[in-house]
């Protein structure tokens, strides 16, 4: 029971997430979408993400991961951390794939950066302003984290961290037991690794 489940819904790159968890010796197991029977033996979940909103949601729906996550997140109230696209999947819908429903754990829509004056995707290191609580416990305020995305969550009542790229957007969110980061903590050096440490503590995982 004492571990975090990392959701593998197909093509995402899990190696760097695994490396980050191993760095802090946080116990985890990969939950493969094709395995079918998922056990409920986890204290919390990480939902990584690359690729597009629509194709990710299709795999999640086809593989019954959606029912599994609904049970664990909405009924058993276990914590989940969505990373990059993984965070966007937690919302109702996205401009990237109109008509495709997201997991719907957090109310709201994901939108695209305006092409007018910005380079897209928003790629590189950018400041994250936060209040040092929860996920950001002990993390330097306004520290640079690595981003790589074209869509974002607008200002949201549940934002716990903000960044600016042309406009101010939500770089991290918490809605009850549901957490998300738009940046890549697994690619943001020492301060990024603290996010995993804090999430493991939130889940109640015991580790070295």
């Amino acid at each position, binding site marked *: 029971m004492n571990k975090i489940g990392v959701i593998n819904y197909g093509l995402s*790159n*899990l190696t760097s997430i695994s490396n980050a968890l191993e760095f802090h010796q946080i116990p985890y197991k990969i939950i493969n979408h094709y395995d079918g029977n998922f056990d409920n033996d986890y204290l919390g979940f990480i939902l990584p993400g690359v690729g597009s909103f629509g*194709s990710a949601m299709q795999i999640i729906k086809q593989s019954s991961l959606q029912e599994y996550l609904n049970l664990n997140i909405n009924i058993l109230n276990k914590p989940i951390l969505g990373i990059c696209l993984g965070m966007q999947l937690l919302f109702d819908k996205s401009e990237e794939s109109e008509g495709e429903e997201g997991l719907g754990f957090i109310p709201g829509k994901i939108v695209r950066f305006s092409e007018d004056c910005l380079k*897209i*995707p928003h790629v*590189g290191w950018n400041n994250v302003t936060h209040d040092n609580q929860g996920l950001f416990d002990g993390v330097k305020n306004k520290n640079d984290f690595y*981003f*790589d995305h*074209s869509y974002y969550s607008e200002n949201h009542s549940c934002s716990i961290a903000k960044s600016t790229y042309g406009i101010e957007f939500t770089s991290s969110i918490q809605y009850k037991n549901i957490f998300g980061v738009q940046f890549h903590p697994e*690619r943001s050096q020492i301060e990024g690794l603290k996010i995993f440490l804090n999430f493991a503590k939130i889940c109640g995982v015991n580790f070295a």
Partner: protein
Amino acid sequence: MLKKRLIATILLKNKCVVQSISFNKFLPIGSLEIVLQFLEKWDIDEVIILDLDASKNKRTINFNLLKNSSRKIFVPLTVGGGISSFDDAKNAFHNGADKVSINSSFLSNNNFIQQVVNDFGSQSVILSADVRIENNAEYYVYANSGKNKIISLKKWIKQAENLGAGELLINSIVNDGMKNGYDTCLYQKITELTKLPIIALGGAGSVIHLVDLFQNTNVSAAAIGNMLYFTEHSTSKLKSALVKENINVRPSCFISYDEWNFELDGRIIPMNLKSLYE
């Protein structure tokens, strides 16, 4: 605010990191794992690993080497050299890479690039081109290490955009390895042609070249190669020197040279000894 990125270009030959001198002589530097760990601790923003012989020998980078060398690396990693199918890209991502760099002058018939973009997202694909100016007028993309002229840069960029590339890595053939600065005209022009983030490669020899590039063009990142080696804390020092020139780079998180002043060639100006004793 989004920072200008400093990207290390690491060249591999037979599993060994090398320094390339005009593409025909190679100085051995050492193991990939150790080079990566040093650069990460010296606050590099991103790393591109290029296998020099992969394409020629119709193979990819050694994926075991990549996986084992990158376990403790927590900055974005790009892999290039010999990536010529969807499975090559998939293997790179499964072994620790975040992006693949695909050097191709023929973008029109590369269906696999489209497939990589669809499944792994635009952000995972860097398309790269070797570029040279013709008759002091127009830039062209060349194949085979600059031997064959293929297509105008303008057309190539349109094709790259249509394929859904996330970033473009543009190498100036003339400036490459010369250590006499970037072709700022090229990069000025290219950032007007596209909204895609541009990585400039070819010509970096000292701090002043990077200052020149970032002050006079709108590129998103500078790739450096030869400047990385034979200097302790090379990239940490470079960053502190750039900060002093008001270039918007990410400050160091492990090693700081902020107390020191720099010559324009990047050398540290010794502190006044008297002030040290006071």
